[in-house]
């Protein structure tokens, strides 16, 4: 069974600080996605990375896919209270339509 471990599990920081969330696996994924989930809502897609070594930027968020396509990171610069939420990575299972979700990182940004 493919697993995606995220770290840290919880993170509480002050507004303006930088942070990095990690998503690691021993399996290779053909692509990887990051989602953010707010309380009472379903997850919403932030980004999809497909190529090993790929870096994508979305305003203050930077996403990186590892060279071996086994891991990924999400870096947030100058965090804002609106960044608060549960961040989930999801890897595409190469042989099927399935996505494997990570264990999640709950971020709280304090004003």
């Amino acid at each position, binding site marked *: *069974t493919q697993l*995606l471990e*995220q770290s840290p*599990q919880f993170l509480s920081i002050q507004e303006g600080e930088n942070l990095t969330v990690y998503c690691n696996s021993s399996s290779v994924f*053909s*692509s990887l*996605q990051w*989602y953010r989930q707010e309380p*009472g*809502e*379903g*997850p*919403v*897609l932030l980004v*999809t990375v*497909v190529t090993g070594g790929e870096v994508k930027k979305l305003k203050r968020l930077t996403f990186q896919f590892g060279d071996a396509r086994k891991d990924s990171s999400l870096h947030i610069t100058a965090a804002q209270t609106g960044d608060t939420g549960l961040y*989930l990575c*999801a890897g*595409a*299972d*190469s*042989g*099927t*339509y*399935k*996505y*494997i*979700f*990570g*264990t*999640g990182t709950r971020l709280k940004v304090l004003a």
Partner: protein
Amino acid sequence: DVKVTQSSRYLVKRTGEKVFLECVQDMDHENMFWYRQDPGLGLRLIYFSYDVKMKEKGDIPEGYSVSREKKERFSLILESASTNQTSMYLCASSLGTGVPPTDTQYFGPGTRLTVL
């Protein structure tokens, strides 16, 4: 605007009851998914469907079944609810661009099921 709706936001059932969770998408998507979400475990796939009347087991199908009679509707059935099925249930759909997937999954708001 894309939309995935789930029949209930909150549901309370008794042990042994048969429970139906309904999900409807209005995007003409091929793929639909049912997940359960538990703290510290992320989302775990129960079942998915890549076409009408087609279904495949996910990682935790035991105690669940599904039905997809129409393209827009995907139902999750708990044949005999048990307390360990208390959880948040999320439905999702995606366009279905192929294998392996790269398309966006669109999620409903979730159903929080409590089994007493």
